[in-house]
């Protein structure tokens, strides 16, 4: 009795799941966190999909920023200790911190 009663529900759920998978659109954009600590972008190299979001979080006591290498494409505001900043990424970029030019990172959009 019990099994009979549950079966139709299970089947319809399964059907719904199949339907969702079959008609699933493009993968959902992801959020990637880049931690800034000990004067480094972590991870310093990252592979993402176009439309993903980057979140820079400054865990150091000193201020940093993230600036696209050419300086013309994008630049975060000054991130004080504890600040974070997010951006949608559409193009591969090398970036650095203008306050500490030896701090470098890279994002590859695939």
């Amino acid at each position, binding site marked *: 009795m019990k099994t009979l009663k549950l079966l139709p529900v299970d089947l319809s759920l399964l059907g719904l799941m199949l339907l969702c998978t079959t008609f699933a659109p493009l993968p959902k954009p992801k959020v990637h966190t880049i931690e800034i600590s*000990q*004067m*480094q972008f972590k991870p310093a190299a990252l592979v993402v999909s176009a439309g993903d979001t980057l979140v820079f979080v400054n865990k*150091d*006591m*000193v*201020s940093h920023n993230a600036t696209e290498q050419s300086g013309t494409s994008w630049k975060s505001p000054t991130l004080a*200790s504890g600040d974070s900043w997010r951006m949608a990424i559409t193009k591969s970029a090398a970036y650095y911190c*203008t*306050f*500490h*030019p*030896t*701090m470098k990172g890279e994002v590859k959009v695939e």
Partner: protein
Amino acid sequence: MGILLYFALLAAPATAQESPKLSDAEVASVAVIANQIDIDQARLAQERSENEAVLQFAQTMINDHEAVIKQATDLVQKLGVTPQENAVGKQLQANAAKTAKMLQTKSGAAFDKAYVDNEVAYHQAVISAVKDLLIPESENEELRGLLESIVPALQAHLEHAQMLQNQLNEK
């Protein structure tokens, strides 16, 4: 170079002996003085330099070393420690006064070169002082943790100064 030698001489007997030569109150005082010296020299650079890269470097030195001083001040307050003057700090200040005097006689490209050369030497000296003297002498774990956490910043400043040194030498 004098600072480096002085730190080396002072650190050597301290590591050979068991009892530390500096109290935490003295370590805190030296840490604040070492940061303040770099801020003062950066202010001098802001007055005398006209080189954009040097001015930007000086601004970073002011911002970063002020952040470190704030962190150190907050910590000693929390720990209830009053930073205490001592021979190491006084020697640092005496050396810094000499450097400032030397820098004040220079201007233009000669100033930039002298300032950046000194920043390279100073950060090298401070990094070894923090690693070989101040960290081993700290008894309080949080104080030691703070000192350890500033080493990467000092290292980045050193590399930045070396980068400027190369750029100035190419001119």
